[in-house]
């Protein structure tokens, strides 16, 4: 797919003419040990169709049994989002035919979600706080996965045949739906990204999901519509799927705004449809057409009994809620005595948890912050990945910091060690050993190098002896060169001055 400029309207012009309205639907795969309605394991990446049973394959006669841990997770998510928890709710069947759905209906919730009416505060890069309303959070089961073989894009269109893997079928999902997000104007794409980021951080703090967008355990469908400036009636929306990273959320929203604006300005109509985000072009293409709003023939699931969480149970679960990300940020700011700006840099880099973990592993907060916000952020940018996706752990960073503190590495050497870890060369100590990076801290070896350098430049040596201490720099340079940078320059300088007394 190519994106020609005629297809989209200049972003500034979009904003002159239209107000965007967003609605974000996030699906979260819970990290329960077993599936939503049966005892099958949920591990990611197993051989296809090895984590299945009569229930999740939809064999005739098999019946579902609700996973209690998943219900607990759903309630905790609801509570963390400030939602009301239903005192009585049911599952419902969402009926539609698709080969990756074993029963040809999805057991979900319809008009009786377990949690509803909450909100989530987001902080944008400049510190602006936006409150996003949460419509509902409900429980459902995931579908299997289709693998389309023979087509150019891996999509069903043009495929020769398809393979089905039902390992994912029945994995517990929580779908979290926002209320319409209005009034964000030019910042709509940024708000979308910030929302998914904030939700991800929240879910991670709750320890209910792996929240890996790349593995599909956190998935975002972005609903976008435009309304002409000055009006309040929402336009026709599209739903963009296949948005697999935070950056893609932002790009997809921005693209849809410019595409829809171009259609509207050209006198066209927006079709209510599903659109497919293309990571490589940053554009979206038409998917399933929703000509009439699809009729899923919802009805209450007769194979399951209603869920009626008692007030005591809900309060017990409320007591298990961990420190929320925003509370944690406030505490960290106080503990580490950060300015608002410093905190924001930390947050914007997605580094809060990483820095905290690094500090927990023994580094000072200052060192930890320097590594993640300065050096590693650049590396993440270069690689185009999230900071947390870099192949280095907080413990490894803390170890490098410890080596520096012990004087065994210079800052320059430390960066080389980190590069080695990022390159997959193993633990920091292994990289030091393999690359021979340790600081030469053996004074006798340094004395020899200093003496050699002084002998090689007798005139400089004389100047130092004559009191021109600043001349020592040339000798330091020579020693550093001779030791291939593995000496501690400060120590070298001390030894030079000692020799020249």
């Amino acid at each position: 797919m190519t994106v020609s400029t005629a297809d989209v309207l200049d972003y500034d012009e979009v904003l002159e003419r239209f107000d965007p309205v967003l609605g974000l639907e996030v699906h979260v795969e819970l990290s329960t040990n077993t599936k939503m309605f049966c005892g099958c394991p949920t591990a990611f990446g197993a051989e296809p169709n090895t984590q299945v049973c009569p229930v999740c394959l939809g064999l005739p006669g098999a019946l579902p049994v609700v996973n209690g841990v998943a219900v607990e997770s759903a309630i905790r998510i609801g509570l963390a989002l400030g939602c009301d928890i239903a005192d009585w709710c049911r599952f419902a069947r969402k009926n539609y035919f698709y080969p990756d759905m074993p029963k040809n209906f999805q057991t979900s919730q319809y008009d009786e979600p377990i949690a509803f009416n909450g909100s989530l505060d987001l902080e944008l890069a400049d510190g602006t706080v936006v409150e996003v309303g949460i419509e509902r959070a409900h429980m459902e089961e995931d579908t299997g996965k289709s693998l389309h073989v023979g087509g150019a894009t891996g999509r069903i269109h043009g495929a020769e045949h398809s393979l089905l893997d039902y390992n994912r079928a029945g994995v517990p999902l929580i779908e979290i739906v926002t209320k319409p997000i209005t009034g964000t104007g030019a910042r709509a794409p940024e708000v979308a990204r910030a929302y998914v980021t904030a939700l991800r951080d929240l879910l991670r703090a709750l320890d209910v999901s792996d929240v890996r967008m790349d593995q599909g355990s956190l998935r975002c469908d972005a609903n976008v519509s435009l309304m002409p400036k000055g009006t309040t009636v929402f336009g026709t929306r599209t739903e963009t799927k296949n948005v697999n990273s935070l950056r893609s959320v932002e790009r997809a929203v921005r693209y849809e705004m410019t595409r829809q604006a171009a259609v509207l300005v050209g006198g066209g109509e927006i079709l209510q449809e599903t659109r497919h985000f293309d990571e490589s072009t940053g554009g979206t293409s038409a998917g399933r057409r929703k000509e009439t709003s699809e009729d899923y023939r919802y009805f209450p699931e007769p194979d399951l009994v209603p869920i009626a969480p008692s007030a005591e149970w809900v309060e017990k679960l409320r007591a298990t809620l961990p420190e929320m990300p925003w509370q944690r940020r406030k505490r960290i700011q106080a503990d580490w005595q950060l300015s608002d700006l410093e905190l924001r840099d930390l947050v914007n880099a997605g580094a809060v948890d990483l820095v905290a973990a690094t500090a927990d592993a023994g580094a000072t907060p200052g060192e930890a912050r320097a590594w993640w916000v300065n050096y590693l952020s650049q590396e993440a940018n270069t690689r185009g990945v999230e900071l947390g996706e870099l192949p280095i752990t907080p413990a490894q960073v803390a170890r490098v910091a410890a080596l520096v503190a012990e004087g065994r590495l210079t800052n320059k050497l430390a960066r080389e060690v980190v590069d080695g870890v990022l390159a997959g060369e193993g633990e920091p100590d292994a990289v030091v050993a393999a690359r021979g990076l340790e600081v030469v801290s053996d004074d006798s070896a340094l004395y020899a190098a200093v003496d050699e350098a002084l002998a090689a430049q007798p005139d400089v040596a004389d100047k130092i002896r004559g009191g021109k201490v600043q001349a020592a720099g040339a000798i330091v340079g020579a020693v550093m060169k001779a030791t291939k940078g593995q000496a501690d320059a400060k120590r070298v300088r001390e030894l030079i001055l000692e020799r020249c007394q």
Partner: protein
Amino acid sequence: MSELTRMTAAELAAKIHTGEVSSVEVTRAHLDRIAAIDETVHAFLHVDTEGALAAAQRVDDDVAAGRPVASPLAGVPLALKDVFATEGIPTTCGSRILENWIPPYSSTVARRLRDAGVVVLGKTNMDEFAMGSSTENSAFGVTHNPWDLDRIPGGSGGGSSASLAAFEAPLAIGTDTGGSIRQPASVTGTVGVKPTYGGVSRYGLVAFSSSLDQGGPCARTVLDAALLHEVIGGHDPLDSTSIDAPVPPVVAAAREGAGGDLRGMRVGVVREFTGEWYQGGVLAAFDLAVEALRGLGAEVVEVSCPHFDYALPAYYLIAPSECSSNLARFDAMRYGLRVGDENGHSAEQVMALTREAGFGAEVKRRVMVGTYALSSGYYDAYYGQAQKVRTLISQDFERAFADVDVLVSPTTPTTAFRIGERVDDPVAMYRADLCTIPANLAGTPAMSVPAGLSDDDGLPVGLQVMAPALQEQRMYRVAAAYEFARDAAWGGPLINRVPELEVAAR
């Protein structure tokens, strides 16, 4: 015919457990009987000779070794409706779409039977996916009523009821969504029980209408049904709708009732179950049965359940709605029939072609009705309204049971009709379940016990006894007492009047 096939399950169990006869002998006698006459009756879709004999041998080994037998019914043969998944044994639900499907797992009912040492002879014929009242909707041929081979054995569980009446098995399992245990029992002169919804696990019972389906025992005597009820009943963690409570003491109630004393019992006759659709001979037999109950000391009063008149239409919205969803899984992707998987057909086309070829007319009719009733814009008017009727019917039952211990009615408005008589008139077919459906909608237990022969055609009539939820012991007691009085009046068990089928077979 071997005398062993004429005995009740209780009698057989006693002989097997004392070593008087072996379970293998009993099982062989029934397998021989099936071999001799099932070509004529066609009660079975699959006979598991090897599995049955192996199960019988295990019981005989227990008896020989002096080990306690697995249950009061250990070693007794049984016919299982082909709607229960049985690992390694074909399970078709009477449908082409599941022809040759061999489940990789067993239903809870099948497991409990195996664990109890009950010998499963095979799988019985049924209306496709339990939709029908005559077993004519089976994809694998009709079953004939042993009382008159030109007549239907009831449905959907016609195979199970016919196997009992033909002395092919002393016990059978059925499922009852709108009457599929009770109506076949009524027209074959056998006993059929629909337990309280949730009383018998549905795990592995291929769903027709999940909120109505209920498995239950079938037999030739009330006591045998009670013995089987206690084997298959009770809580199952694999079925969320299963009731976590002890099985009501039905065996004790059946034994108590056999004493023929119903003093202190209040019996309600449902006023609404009479009228133009009822056969004269059925109403006459029912009146005699009520008289018999009075004679046993019961106090009989008339009660009104005004909303029962709406049960049939409500049922024909709820059941098809749920069936349209339950049957969606038969799509050729993972198991069962696959049609059109060539010529570059898409998955969607294969699904459509398979369902077109694999489902019969009645199943398609109900899937269509249900799909329509659940559609947005129609949901409230159809499914929603039907659910409200359901609540009203439950309230009718509650009011009635505040006044009486059990309710009675004819089980079905007519005796067995002729094969082919109603195939072109679905509504006439549906009326066979007029009296049985309310108990399904309310989830309450009900049973049919033979109530003599109709004076206009000489065919069996059924007396339906209904009780409040989890009060099965009441209806067993009444049915057993009535059975005692009836046999006294008729000079022996009614079932002995079934014609000799060997003659017909030749």
